[in-house]
């Protein structure tokens, strides 16, 4: 069942075409991630879905309703964590939650939300005294207070340390566990890969690719990069000569004792190389095969370097 449908949506700010012809649909219970570099149009897209901005053209349907006709009813049933965490700094965690709860016809108990976002121990603390990660969790909690059918998280982990980021991931996974539909934006590829059912990659306002993380990676060529470090430069040079005759090796590069081989069949190439090494009595100090990630997908689809 589709809970969100975005079709042919465009938005410009002056000469800047922030979002162009974007279309996608999100199913109930799905974690859908919009990923792209800064300024790609993620937040603009999200704000149009949240009713904060009007698209120049195209249509958006949220839970079967449109912003023109049912703004208040949509607001009752969605939850939002905006990029700037927008909290009442001098109110406590509990006071913030209770205030937001009063805005809705129906809401979950404040204690339950505090439990869900792990803030029960800090319930009496003023927002000002919370850490960045705790603030972000509270912002997510405020988005969950009305037990929304869809929750929108706009870059929930940006600027957080790795541990705080893990905590947010746990919350998102917990939401997925209870069947909540989540629309997430991020510019961390790893996060998108870990959390999402489906990923939509956008760049310069356009959708570049959209599918499950696994399928997206699967669309890339099967080439993998093998990296070996030999005990001596001469050994690496000899191995370089030997591996060039191997049929699966697509590209070979050497830098001192380091040898990098891109291979269409990494296991065969590696077998070949190890054979030479044991025959010649060479020492290999390190071997690795780099896994492909969404980052490679981005590079492959946009031809651009990925910068976090």
């Amino acid at each position, binding site marked *: 069942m589709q809970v969100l449908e975005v079709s042919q949506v465009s938005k410009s700010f002056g000469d800047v075409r922030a979002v162009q012809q974007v279309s996608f649909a999100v199913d109930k219970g799905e974690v859908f991630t919009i990923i792209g570099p800064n300024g790609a149009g993620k937040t603009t897209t999200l704000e149009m879905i949240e009713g*904060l901005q009007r698209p120049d053209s195209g249509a958006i349907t949220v839970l079967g309703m449109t912003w023109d006709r049912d703004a*208040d009813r949509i607001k009752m049933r969605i939850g939002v964590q*905006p990029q700037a965490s927008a909290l*009442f700094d*001098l109110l406590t965690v509990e006071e913030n939650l209770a205030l937001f709860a009063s805005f809705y016809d129906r809401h979950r108990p404040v204690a339950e939300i505090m439990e869900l976002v792990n803030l029960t121990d800090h319930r009496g603390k*003023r927002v000002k005294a919370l850490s960045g990660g705790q603030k972000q969790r509270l912002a997510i909690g405020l988005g969950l207070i009305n037990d929304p059918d869809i929750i929108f998280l706009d870059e929930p982990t940006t600027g957080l340390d790795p541990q705080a980021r893990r905590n947010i991931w746990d919350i998102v996974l917990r939401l997925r566990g209870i069947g909540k539909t989540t629309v997430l934006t991020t510019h961390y590829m790893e996060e998108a890969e870990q959390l999402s059912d489906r990923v939509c990659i956008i760049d310069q306002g356009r959708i570049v690719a959209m599918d499950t993380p696994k399928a997206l990676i699967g669309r890339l060529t099967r080439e993998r990069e093998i990296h070996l470090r030999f005990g001596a430069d001469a050994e690496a040079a000899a191995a370089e000569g030997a591996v060039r005759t191997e049929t699966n090796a697509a590209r070979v590069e050497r830098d001192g004792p380091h040898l990098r081989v891109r291979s269409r069949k990494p296991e065969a190439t590696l077998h070949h190389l190890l054979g030479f090494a044991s025959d010649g009595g060479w020492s290999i100090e390190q071997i690795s095969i780099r896994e492909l990630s969404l980052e490679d997908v981005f590079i492959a689809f946009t031809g651009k370097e990925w910068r976090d």
Partner: protein
Amino acid sequence: MAKSLKQLRMLFAAQIKETFRERQVWFWQILFPVLLLVIFMVIFGGGGGDFSAKVAIVGERSGVAAETFVASAEASGVLEVEKDLAPGEAKQRLKDNRLDAVIVLPGSGDTGEFRLLLNAERQSGSTAQAIGSIAGQLTAAANQAVTGSAPAFTLKTEYVSSGSRELEVADFLLSGMIALSIAQSGLFGMVGLVEMRRKGILKRLRMTPVNMRLFGIANMGVKFVLSVVQLALLAAIGILAFGAKPDFAPATFLLTFVVGTLAFTGLGYLTASVSKTLESYMGIANIASFVMMFLSGIFIDINVLPDWLKPVSKVLPLTYFAESVRGGMVYGSGLECG
């Protein structure tokens, strides 16, 4: 309806907490007006309002006019008169600030002029003005004595205001400070709102079904609470510590208070809505408040302003607000006085 009331209550409580948990609010909106009041009371209020000045009368004391003048001055009770100084010595003491004024009597004969010498650096002070007017009255008395038309003469300094009772310095300052602090908190009180906009809280609220009108009403409610706190505190200090004796006209005062708070809060909202950053907001509010502080008759009566400045004070809203507050709490004016 019940839901709206609950929302209003929650929004009001949240904003009250946000306001009173902020130390800046305590300092600028509560402590600062009190400090200003105390400072101005101490400077201008001068120990309960008894006026006295040290004056030397020099020159030839001959003739009815001169004798009448000196006698009246001594009898006035407000002037401490030195009669036996040489003119040069008197002028030196005036320069050294050991005297407030020197009055030079006219030469022999019954016509001529009394000359009043004041210290140039202090000519705009209230003491100088008072001595000027007293000397004027004394001169008039002397003239009457010469023409023989006047009855026995006594001088009593009384600053008679147009209201039901005297407007003393303490009352003048207290009512001015109350007007000023309500105006100030209206103008500056939107810092919180500008901050909320900057941090995206207003935007965040628009993503919820909350009625933003209720948010606005709650915000106004908080301003009223703050105004009442300021009012009570300033009035208590003015009355208990500085002997102000306000003559309340409750209806006038209440109306003035409500309209004034609304008007200046409105100005604050206007300022907040045209300024993008906190810095620009503070800049605009500061300029507005400084201009009004000095040109709206808060500390200084607007009648002593130079003529070219008077039109400016006539267009400042605080002039009228301060006038109404004085009407309501000092003169005991009824509403019909406008």
